[in-house]
């Protein structure tokens, strides 16, 4: 399970995109059934962008939350149990609050990774303006036609990334430990 989750982390994103096409494409392993039974086709759609970016970025969230869960002290859950809290209440009122920093850090990291995603997105979802063009794709396109626009877009991305890192610094450090 852990290996399965971390594969997208080490896989080159373009390869990830190819893998997604093979599995979810219109003739893919799962994709052909999706198309036949429900008429759903993911590749080269906005939903396809979401799938591709989630595939690449999700490991950041999973690993971060898993680390927080491992670091959580199980004795607090025992204390909650002796106070009469069942499993669900213990999870909701004790476990979950204690891993919030991990969840926040993981979410932001995951989001930041998705923001910059290029390879898997262009492979799986293509580059249709208004439907599947993401910021990095737009930068790449603009670079060929209008370099000034590319620079502006890049600066916007850079600015967002720096703001995210700066606001996250404390939480990230405490959450990952």
């Amino acid at each position, binding site marked *: 399970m852990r290996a399965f989750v971390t594969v997208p982390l080490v896989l080159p994103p373009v390869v990830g995109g190819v893998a997604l096409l093979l599995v979810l494409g219109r003739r893919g392993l799962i994709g052909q059934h999706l198309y036949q039974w429900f008429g759903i086709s993911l590749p080269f759609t906005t939903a396809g962008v979401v799938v591709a970016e989630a595939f690449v970025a999700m490991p950041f969230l999973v690993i971060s939350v898993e680390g927080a869960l491992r670091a959580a002290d199980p*004795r*607090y859950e*025992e*204390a*909650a*149990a*002796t*106070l*009469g*809290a*069942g499993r669900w*209440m213990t999870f909701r*009122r*004790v476990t979950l*609050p*204690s891993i*919030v920093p991990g969840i926040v850090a993981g979410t932001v990291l995951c989001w930041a990774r998705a923001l910059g995603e290029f390879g898997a997105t262009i492979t799986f979802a293509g580059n249709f303006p208004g439907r599947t063009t993401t910021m990095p794709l737009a930068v790449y396109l603009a670079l060929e036609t209008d370099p000034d626009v590319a620079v502006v877009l890049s600066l916007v991305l850079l600015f967002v990334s720096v703001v995210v890192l700066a606001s996250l610094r404390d939480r990230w450090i405490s959450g990952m430990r």
Partner: protein
Amino acid sequence: MTLYADLRVSRGAFDLSLDLTVEPGEVVALLGPNGAGKTTALRAIAGLLPLDDGRIALDAAVWDEPPRTFRTPDRRPIGVVFQDYLLFSHLSCLENVAFGLRARGVDKQIARTEAERWLKTVGLSSYARSRPRSLSGGQAQRVALARALATDPELLLLDEPLAALDAGTTLHVRAELGQHLRRFEGRTLLVTHDPLDAMVLADRLVIIENGQVVQEGKPTEVARRPRTDYVAQLVGLNLYQGAATGTTVGLGKGGTITLAEPATGPVHVAFPPTAISLYLQPPTGSPRNTWPAVVTGIEQHAHTVRVRLDASPTGPATLLADITPAAVADLRLTPGQRLHATLKATEVHTYPN
């Protein structure tokens, strides 16, 4: 409604085998050295550790009876104060105290009112909105106690409630804890390795070593008549076992002790270290117990000096004597020194084995 616990738990080479009863209003202290199985027993009763064999029941209600019955902790009417309190750091003190009531389905407003009342009882009303990490050790312990008592448990379990405090506050917190325990109408089981905590707080002591009960009784009884070396050490007495004939006790490990009152059969012999006097020359006159002895160790205590002696073969092989620093100077005590130890027979306490 009495709590009966017949605990049998095996963990590797360690076996816990313990019979306990706790009556309503009674405070029972489980006292023993580290690794004796005290915390294991507490966890089993709390339901955090299932029994391998035995039975835990509060009158007719069975909590644990392998292999059929096991009630999880949240379904036992208990309150636990853990060693490092385990207050939820993301909740305020008030929410911590109200947690148990909320978990048991009490309405939010009622739970808050009740929690406020408990915080007032432990004298921490003004800390209701504070986070636990801003509290001192003693305050955190009181919040933990309030949290455990707020659900009105049938059984209160305390795991080393004073061990995490610094020495200066222990005295005060212990006295206060004693007051709350006396007011509590349910049963209390206190786990501790500190004999003072046990003597002050408990109505009855259960002393365990290596997972077995070695002695049980009222604190005064245990303090006067220890039955094992561990207990004797706790209460600061010299303790020996031997066979009495008339006024003479032949010790199991060699040597004899003369008594003031005759006794027969196997006995325990106990006397305080202050009953021993030390001389350079063999004393003349009345003392009936005089043994040549060798100094094996010297420790400074608060106002006395504790001297460890070997009085074999005529007396006990290990003998503790408390003498004044002035006497140490007079005798010029050094380890290995030979001198004479006398014991006042009137201070010797004997009781059947």
